[in-house]
């Protein structure tokens, strides 16, 4: 599940990751505020997590700044509505670069690996050079 300040950025990365990883993985975007402007929305994040969760858990990646903070607060249960919607689900926020982490996570999830392995694959992209 990909969280971005921008609808276009989140959807574009879903599109790219889906092409690289193939159809075996569910990818969802939560981009922008509920009006479609730039921002982040706990409500949209919850909805995307619920859409993404097929029972094996969900890995969340965010672009930066308040996208990460909003997701983090949500997963820590600071938002009562969010906490009840996510109760019983395994959701992990990965500390990884948005593009590289999303692609690595998507491919690893598509191969049927566990939630922990998917998080590890995403976080293993930290510090990767572009060339």
């Amino acid at each position, binding site marked *: 599940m990909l969280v971005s300040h921008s609808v276009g950025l989140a959807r574009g990365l879903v599109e790219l990751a889906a092409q*690289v*990883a193939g159809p075996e993985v569910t990818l969802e975007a939560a981009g922008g505020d509920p009006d479609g402007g730039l921002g982040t929305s706990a409500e949209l994040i919850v909805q995307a997590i619920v859409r993404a969760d097929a029972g094996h858990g969900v890995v969340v990646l965010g672009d930066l700044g308040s996208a990460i903070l909003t997701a983090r607060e949500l997963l820590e249960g600071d938002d009562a509505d969010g906490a009840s919607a996510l109760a019983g689900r395994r959701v992990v926020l990965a500390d990884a670069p948005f593009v590289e982490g999303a692609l690595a996570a998507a*491919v*690893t999830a*598509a*191969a049927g*690996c566990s939630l922990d392995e998917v998080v590890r694959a995403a976080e293993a*992209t930290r510090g990767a050079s572009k060339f």
Partner: protein
Amino acid sequence: MAPASSDPPRGGEPGAAAPGTPLTPEAHEAKVTLPAGVDLHARPAGLLVKAALRYQARITVSSGDRAADARSLLGLLGLSARGGSTLHLRGEGEDAGAAVEALTQTIARLGSQD
């Protein structure tokens, strides 16, 4: 996925290797050519990672003087391997033979993907 044997045989069993005999993991190697026109970009690299993750064996993919773990998408992209160039696969582990064979076939088939 086949369960990996976690307990190597130790001395004491009839016919077992003498205590202290090093157990070298099975290693398998193959050379395979990337189909012409198919550079090792994100989508083909993703197919290789998915194939490699089906096996316990650790597969290293080399291109020229660069090497990457076949399970690492970014590692494979970092090889900057061009279509028509030769990749060297080396697998270590219990199912290394099957893993190297599967990756060889995956690479050969890249040319027929859209």
